[in-house]
Every structure is written in C-alpha cells, then in structure tokens.
C-alpha cells in the first residue's frame, strides 16, 4: 500500500467523521430548539419509545421517525412547523394512529407531530348546533358531551371510541351511518390550520358559506398533506325521535343485495344498511356472540326519524326483505337490543382473528347495482387463489370491506393475499367505483391511484398541494405516486440538511 493511498484513506475517514459530528451537532441543535418549544416531556427521541409511532393501524409499513413531538397548543404546533420549514424537515401529523392506509406512517428522516395532548372540547354551542374541538379529541367523546341535550356527532367510524377528530378530518372518515348523515366533510364547518410554513389560516366557521374558495372541502380528506388542523368546528345533530334496527337472514348475498336495491328503488333512505356474508357472520359469532342467525348473508337496516314515519317505512322494509327470500327477520327496538345487533358488525374486522391467523382489511367502492357481479368475481378470485375472503359491506353506498384471510407462516400466502386484495380493488375500478371509500390512500394505495385516475387528473389535484405546501414537507410521499414539481422552474436542487450532513442520501 503506498503512502498516498493511506493518506487518501485517512482524509476520507476524517471527512466522514466530520460529517457525522456535523450531523450530531445539527441533531442536537434542532432537538434543543424543539425541546424548548414543547418541554422535555413533549419530545421523544429514544428508540424504544419511537417504536410506538413507527406505524398506524396498517402495520405492514414501518418507518422509525427521528423524533416525536407532543405539542399542547396551536402556538406550539406553529413553532415546530416553522423549525421544520426552516430546516426542511418533513413532518407527519398523527392523531390516535388508528388509520388503515398508513396515512400517519412516519417519513424517512422526518418527525411526527402527535396531537393527542390537544384534546379539549373548547365549546359546545347548542343554540347553533356547533361544537368546537381540538384535533386530539376522541370522536365518541363529542357525542358523549352533547348527549344530555339529545344531540350527537354523526360520523361514526367503527373505531369511534379511540380515533381522533383530527384524524377523521385528515381521512374524511365515514362510518355505518354516513348513508343518511354524510361523511366527516359534511359535518366539519370550520378549521383553524397551521400551514406548512407555520402561518395560520382560518377556513369556514360557525356560519355557513364564507366567501371564497371552499378550501375546507379540499382540506378534509387530504390525509395530512396540506397542513395541520388545530381547531375544528363541528356540526352536531339532534337525535331522531326513534331508531329501529332490522336484522334479516338471506340465503346469499344476491338476495340481500336485491333487497337493498328494492329499498332504494322504493325511495327509502335508511340511516344505515349493512351486509355481512357467511364467513363474516361466523367470525362475529365466535368473537362476540351477537346471536346472529347462521345464513348466507345478513342485512342490518336501521331507520330513524319521527315515530310514525319509521313505523310506516319499517313495515315496507320488512315486506321487501320477505319478497327477497329472507327467512328470518328480527326488529331490535330497545337500545340494548340494538347494541347487541350492532356489536357483531362493529367487531367484524377484529373478529377475523378468531377464524384466521392473519388478514388484510380492504376498502373499495362500487356502484350498488354492480354488487352481484363483483361478488361473483370475488368468489372466483378467492377460489383461484385458494384463500378465503370474508365480506362486510356498507351496502347502501356500495362500500365493500373484503377481508382476505391468510396464514403468514405458510410460505407465499402473504404475497398471494396481497395480490388477491389488489385484484379486488381492480374489480372495483373496473365496475366504475373507487379504491377507497373511507380508509384513505395514504401509503398503502398510492400505487393504485394511476389505475383510477389519469396522470392529468393526478397532476391537477397536486396543483392544490403546490399552493398549500410548495416545499412538500407536510406528510410528503402519501396519496400521490409521483409528486408534482411546484413552482415556475422545476428542477432546482435543494439539498436536505441531513444529506448535507451525510446522514441521508438521495436517489
């Protein structure tokens, strides 16, 4: 080895050491600044604690964030975001972490801003039927808070006892009752936002139709890519005079589906129409003993409204179910009976654990009338793949939740399950539907977006992104498979500080 090579090596080693020490200095400087903002208990940097935040409800993607921050005020969120903006550090806002598409998955070398400490219901205004809440407030807590005056908060995702309103806003969450009551976007009337460069913007408010673009309509469901909502004005709804839930057992999903079509054709708009197939029923029974009849398909129909109206419509629903070969019909009248009927449905996803070691929860939408065709295809694909598929539907609006069952221990099954699950989404697209009805695109379905939308469609959506967050720091790399270059001159290369510091590389 000649002296020159040794020299060169030494100099390379010194350079690497300098880069590492620069990175450490950088890290320390930024962490010190962030700690100053949120206090020592508001900053998590230890590896073992960070593991809690490496994924959301979709556990097959995992990324360790560099730090997690737990702000307790809008002002703290602003200060954190300003640091991120200045240092070009990507950030991901997180609520309860129950999302099912990887929307709260941390990004490489980014930080997570957890909003769980911002969990106050700031105001309840019964006279105007509004509630103002912080993003970390749990969905069901809103209803609990307004229940004494006979109000409720309508969007009810199955995770409503743990999911946060901020997360609901990001995902535009639905739930069983959105058939009649609409989605999160229907019930959000105002937002206070921290934008990607740290400034505040107020969209909408307690009063309807604020002049200007409906940016709130775009923000709700933007999956954290347009900024962070720090205050949310919600509509609350008066409880209906009565609620009745009918449970009907059909020979198969075809008859149950036909009954749904007949109800729609008869001009009814039930509060909810849910369907479960035999496998889903078996799982629910094993898990929570909901006392469901063992049948090919089960329909849950909930009607609400004034007593006389519900009575008239329920008689009609009963008749339609019988005409479509329902062989058992029960009507739950009391709250306790209704709760039991719903228990099996709400537990359906988790219940799969009773009948299969592993499963994938899928979320697709089809025009309601395509149900028989799509079901037939799902059965065919499932047979072909040699994997079982349980089906839970929000049947009224064509939202399918096929659950693909598999065993990770058997080599190749996980891959086969993923392929089958994607094939089902392709069926939904081919039927004129959507790749997601309520779980979001997140990390999970980015690759499916070009199958549903053309490139100009996706580029047009991203113009909004460029207006809100030209540096693409707020939950980057989600929703869109290819980011749009923002600004007049594409291509100006700005090195990431971590890259400069030698901690990260770009390709």
């Amino acid at each position, binding site marked *: 080895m000649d002296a020159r090579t040794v020299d060169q090596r030494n100099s390379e080693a010194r350079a690497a050491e300098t880069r590492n020490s620069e990175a450490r200095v950088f890290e320390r400087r930024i962490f010190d600044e962030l700690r100053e903002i949120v206090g020592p208990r508001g900053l998590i940097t230890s590896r073992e604690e960070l593991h809690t935040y490496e994924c959301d409800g979709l556990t097959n993607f995992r990324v360790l964030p560099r730090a997690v921050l737990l702000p307790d005020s809008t002002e703290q969120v602003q200060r954190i975001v300003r640091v991120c903006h200045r240092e070009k550090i990507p950030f991901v806002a997180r609520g309860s972490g129950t999302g099912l598409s990887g929307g709260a998955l941390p990004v490489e070398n980014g930080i997570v801003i957890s909003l769980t400490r911002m969990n106050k219901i700031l105001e309840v205004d019964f006279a*105007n039927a509004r509630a103002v809440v912080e993003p970390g407030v749990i969905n069901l807590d809103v209803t609990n808070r307004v229940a004494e005056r006979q109000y409720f908060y309508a969007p009810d995702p199955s995770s409503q006892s743990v999911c946060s309103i901020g997360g609901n806003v990001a995902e535009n969450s639905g739930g069983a009752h959105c058939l009649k009551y609409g989605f999160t976007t229907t019930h959000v009337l105002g937002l206070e936002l921290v934008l990607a460069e740290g400034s505040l913007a107020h969209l909408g408010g307690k009063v309807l139709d604020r002049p200007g673009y409906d940016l709130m309509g775009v923000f709700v469901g933007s999956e954290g890519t347009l900024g962070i909502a720090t205050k949310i004005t919600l509509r609350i709804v008066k409880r209906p005079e009565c609620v009745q839930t009918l449970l009907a057992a059909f020979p198969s999903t075809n008859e149950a589906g036909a009954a749904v079509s007949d109800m729609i054709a008869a001009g009814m708009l039930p509060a909810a129409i849910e369907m479960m197939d035999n496998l889903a029923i078996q799982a629910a029974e094993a898990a929570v003993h909901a006392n469901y009849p063992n049948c090919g398909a089960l329909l849950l129909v909930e009607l609400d409204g004034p007593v006389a109206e519900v009575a008239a419509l329920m008689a009609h629903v009963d008749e339609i179910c019988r005409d479509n070969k329902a062989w058992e019909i029960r009507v739950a009248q009391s709250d306790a009976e209704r709760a039991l009927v719903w228990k099996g449905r709400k537990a359906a996803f988790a219940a799969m654990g009773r009948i299969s070691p592993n499963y994938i929860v899928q979320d697709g939408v089809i025009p309601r009338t395509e149900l028989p065709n799509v079901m037939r295809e799902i059965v065919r694909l499932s047979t072909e793949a040699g994997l079982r598929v349980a089906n839970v539907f929000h049947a009224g609006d064509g939202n399918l939740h096929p659950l693909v069952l598999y065993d990770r221990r058997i080599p190749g099954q996980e891959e086969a399950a993923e392929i089958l699950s994607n094939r089902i989404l392709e069926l939904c697209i081919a039927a004129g539907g959507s790749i997601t009805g309520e779980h979001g695109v997140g990390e999970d379905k980015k690759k499916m977006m070009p199958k549903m*939308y053309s490139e100009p*469609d996706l580029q047009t959506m991203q113009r909004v992104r460029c207006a809100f967050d030209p540096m693409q720091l707020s939950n980057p790399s989600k929703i869109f498979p290819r980011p749009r270059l923002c600004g007049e001159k594409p291509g100006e290369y700005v090195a990431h500080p971590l890259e400069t510091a030698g901690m990260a590389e770009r390709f």
Partner: protein
Amino acid sequence: MDASVSSKLSDKSTFETDVRGIVTPKYVRAASASDAVAGVQPSFVVEPGSERELAKVLKLAYGAGLAVIPRGGGTKLEWGNRPARADVILSTARLNRVIEHPWADLTVSVEAGCTLAKLQETVAKHRQRLALDTLWAERATVGGVLSTNDSGALRLRFGSLRDLVIGVTVSLTDGTVASSGGKVVKNVAGYDLPKLLTGALGTLAVITRAIFRLHPLPKETRTISCVTSNSAEAQQLVHELQNSKLAQSALQICWGAGIQPRVDVLFEGTEAGLAAQVQQAKAMLGAAPVRDAGRDVWDARQEVCSAAKSSGEFAVAKFATLPAELAETLEMIAGLCSGELRWSVVVQATGIGWVRLKGAVGKIDSVLRQLRANLEGREGSLVLAHRIAGTSELDAWGDAGDALPLMRAVKGQFDPLGTLNPGRFVGGI
C-alpha cells in the same frame, strides 16, 4: 396605434381564425351588447361542441392572453365583481346532455350546459331528484349553478352542492382536461376537487361535466305557514322546530316592509308520517295562527331575486348569519331601512338569507355596508348579487379573512395568467 394595442388586435384576429378551425365558423360570433358582463363588452362568443373542443378553445385564448368568461344560461352572470377584462364568452350551451342516469345507483352524470329543469325532468322519470332548489331552473345550467354555489330552502335537510356533487370534469387554461371524484357517493381517493370548483365562480377552471348523487322524490309533501307578530317570535318558532324531533325538509322566515314575519315549514315523507308531524308542529306553534299552505311559498327566494333581474331598481344580497341570530339580523335590516327603503327578506333556518332593497342609491349603499360590517363582526358575511343602477363600487364579496393568500396561491396554480373571470372573485382574484 401603440405597439401593445396593435399586438393585442393581431392576437385577437389570430384567435378568431384559429377558433373557427376548432368549433367551425358557425359557433363563433362577434359579441353583441347583450353579451356584456356588468358593462364590460367582450369580443367573441364561442360555443364548443365537446369537452375537447372547449379545452382547445380555452388553451387558445390563454395562449393569446385573452380573458375568458365561461357562461351557461347567463342567469347569474352579474354576480361577483365587474370583470377586469372580458374578451371571450365561452358558452356551454351545446354541452347540454344528460350523459347517464343509472337510477338504481341514485346518481346522474350530466354535461355542464344542461339546464336544471332538464336534469330534474330526466331523473324524475324514475321518481328521483337532485335535492336542490335553485334559482331560475328553466335556464340555469349545471355549470353555472355549481360555480355560483346556488342553493335554496332544501339545504336544511339535504345540504348544499358540496354535499351533492360527487365528481367533476374540468378544463384548465393550459388545455388539460382533468376529472376528480367519480360515480360513487362514497369515495376518498385523492383531493376533493368538486368541492373546490363549487362556488369558485369559474375562476379556476371551466366545469364541463358533473356527477351528482340523487335522492328519491318524496311520496308526499305538506307545507304549513304561520304568521307571527314579530321577528323574535318567528325566531322562537324556528328554534323550537329545530330543537324538536320533527324532521322538516325546509324552514324559512319571510318578512318585509309593511308585512308581518311569516314562518314556513316543509315536511316530506309518507302520508302517515306527515300527518303525525304536521299535527305535532301545529301543536308546537301553539297560539300563532297556522294554516296549510301551497308549495308556492318556497318560491320566496326566487321572487326576491327575480324582481332585481327584471327592473334594475333593486339591489339583492345574500347574507349568512348564525342560526340563533336570525331575529337579530332581521331587526337590523328593518332598523337600517326604516322609513327610507323598501325591503324584503327571506332567511332559512340554516342562517342563509336573501335581502332585497329599493330606494335611493346612496342609502342602499350605506345600508349594505353597515349590514356587512355587522355580519362580519359576528362571523357572518354579506355577498352582493344584484347591484342597482348607479351603485358605487361596493365589493361583491367582503372579507375572506386570513385564508385569502392561500386562495390566491390556489388561483395562481390553476390559472396563472388570470385568464378566467379576472377580477370577479374575492380579493380581486
């Protein structure tokens, strides 16, 4: 002639030649005085026959630096501010088909130039409706109604356009044709551009197609009306109905100079359900004289607006207030107008209302300014729809708050040269 003027003229004549090539000469004509928008005279009226043609025309205008005013039925063309420039009226008159009505899916896909009346007629064949009562449905088009976010009394039960539109196809100024949303009601894939385009007054893109969710036509409807002695009593009745477990589809207060405030309630549903609800409502309204009324009371909003269109002697503004502050707002209007202006108001339980004023121009101007200041102080707004001849340049929109820079940024991304409806929207957008 200075150089910029002559180059402008040559741009226009090149545009005219090229646009004839796209839509054929039959569908390009010189604009007449009746095509003027708030007194600004455009040069051409172009009527493309397809989405593609429309996109090409738009791109051509953009390339020539011309300002484009998209136009449907032209019923609300005077809404918003006076355009800063107007060269081309881009008419959707020929894009007037109902593309598809898969009735069992309760959706409809329709071209932007289709009138609301034609749309409703088509879907009514299967006893369905777009649950939206717009102004002037005979002439108003889907694109215009979406762009102005027009909604009426049914909003209480069914929401406004943002709750009913599930997909749009648009043309951007650079000729991009893009779709967002789709044919299914439940869909969270990608950004919700249908909502962004709704109420954007055609300043971001030209809507060429929309998909809506539909509702069944009600089996039966009943309207009851109740004349009250003052606005506080009217507010009280509205509050009681809203706070009850009745499920009214619409609820409004009509009031004006020289008449007493009247509360109208609409129930929709089965015969049995309606009978019970009407009986309960009547009991609740108690001492006040309640009568069964015809559907025509729901034309009140259109009556308020139509007079302004036909005579030009009226100013009309839309206002928004808190639902619990209807009486306060009504009293303010009555007080400000007192003795000097003729006025009439219709306000819905949602807090959205319409006010019409007649009288001295200066007084109208000052009343509108005071009303706006008061409403904006209480989170509300006042948007001018119809101006009176000779009114000062009162901004149509009022304050858009701290989101205005963001709105400008969105405009910049969609329409960087300000080709579409320049100057007509909030903050001079």
